[in-house]
């Protein structure tokens, strides 16, 4: 009885809060040309055209159009499944790019622009904008990556005992005021996975999927996720499999 009396006005307050948040999100998306992430996509295009015209993202050397929509995928030349960022780094390595130095600090600090690999990934993703996720799953290694990602997504560990599902298996829940997408369900995954890479207003830079995953593990009080590791690619394979058929809208603009 007590609980019922307490919760009725609360539900109203919660709806009002949610409505205000939704308005803020809508305002961010109202004018797509106001998205600073487009500048990073342009920078990425320049980098691609000067360094990576021989890079095969799965659709042939130098072909960018629609490639992101079919990643992650198995690459025979590397004998592993790769997401866009991992593949771009693999291609850059062939041009003499210092991979070891990059891996020491692959992501921008707050307010700093996204690094070269991320800028190229933003460009590559933007060339699949409006298309639907259709990562191939025929190769056994591709199937394995999705299954591994599923296992990691559900695996509880660390001092807080968190798995990804701790936050992303409840519908409509929030951390503080931030809504949490129900990433285990295709309907919700299709809506949000295609928004990465996205310009994150609160960080003032483009955040890529590799960076986003690292950030989750930071919150989960687990260790730094290694850029391009099998674990990072598998998590992306799993999320993209859940988002299959969902539209890509990268670079998006996020809170």
């Amino acid at each position, binding site marked *: 009885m*007590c*609980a019922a009396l*307490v*919760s009725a006005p*609360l539900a109203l*307050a*919660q709806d009002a*809060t949610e409505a205000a948040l939704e308005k803020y999100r809508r305002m961010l998306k109202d004018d797509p040309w106001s998205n600073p992430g487009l500048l990073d996509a342009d920078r990425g295009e320049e980098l691609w055209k000067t360094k990576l015209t021989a890079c095969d993202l799965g659709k042939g050397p130098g072909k960018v159009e629609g490639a992101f929509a079919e990643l992650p995928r198995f690459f025979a030349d590397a004998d592993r499944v790769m997401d866009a960022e991992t593949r771009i780094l693999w291609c850059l390595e062939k041009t003499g790019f210092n991979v070891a130095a990059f891996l020491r600090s692959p992501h921008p600090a707050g307010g700093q622009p996204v690094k070269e690999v991320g800028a190229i990934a933003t460009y590559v993703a933007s060339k699949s904008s409006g298309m639907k996720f259709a990562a191939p799953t025929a190769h056994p290694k591709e199937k*394995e990556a999705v*299954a*591994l990602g*599923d*296992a*990691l997504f*559900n*695996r*509880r*560990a*660390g*001092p*807080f*005992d*968190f*798995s990804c*599902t*701790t*936050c992303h298996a*409840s519908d*409509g*829940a*929030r*951390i*503080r*005021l*931030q809504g*949490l997408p129900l990433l285990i369900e295709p309907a919700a995954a299709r809506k949000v996975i295609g928004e990465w890479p996205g310009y994150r207003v609160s960080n003032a830079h483009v955040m890529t999927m590799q960076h986003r995953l690292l950030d989750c*593990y*930071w*919150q989960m*009080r*687990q*260790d*730094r*996720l*290694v850029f391009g*590791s*099998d*674990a*990072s690619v*598998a998590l992306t394979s799993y999320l993209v499999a859940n988002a299959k058929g969902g539209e890509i809208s990268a670079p998006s603009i996020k809170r």
Partner: protein
Amino acid sequence: MNRISSYLVVAGVLVAAACTLGERKMTVAPELIDAALKGGWAASTPEWLARHTQDETMRLCTQYNNEPPKAVAATIEASARASIKYPADGKLIGDWRQGERLAQSGYGMRFTDYPARNPTGGNCYACHQLSEAEVSYGTLGPSLLGYGKIKDFTAEAIKATYEKIYNSHAVLPCSNMPRLGANGVLTPEQIRDAVALLMSRDSPVNK
């Protein structure tokens, strides 16, 4: 019965079946997971590496998708209960102002928090509503507004609250809530401050 409602019945049966299955189908070899864990995280020190190693409770909660069958739940509950340590002086209720501070703080144990510049927080507001004044609260956990009042401020409820925060699995096996005491996130003294926030008559939680 029309067609739509018979679909609903079928869907309901399927959902019920899925819910009773519980156990995760392991479609990937444990060795593959171990290899991915090894290469996936920077793990520069044994302490960080240890964070990826599941104890028996986490292994079972993962295996059963956080819905353990009765016998497994009983094992988890018993080991959680055995883990609980109380403050040396036996006092289970501390200072609610300190409790509010740690409920607000998400600082600590993240890979950028070393060396630690602040005490580790409990981050309670991330998941729970606690006071009327703080509107930025999460909803992964239940609202705790008026918690002490609802529990009538009894000594039993104070003890149960301390135990729940120390090791949530002693109350709800495979709870989503961190084992804040058992995992060494908060000290027994910090936990009793959090108890005070929930169970003191003058705390903003009970205003």
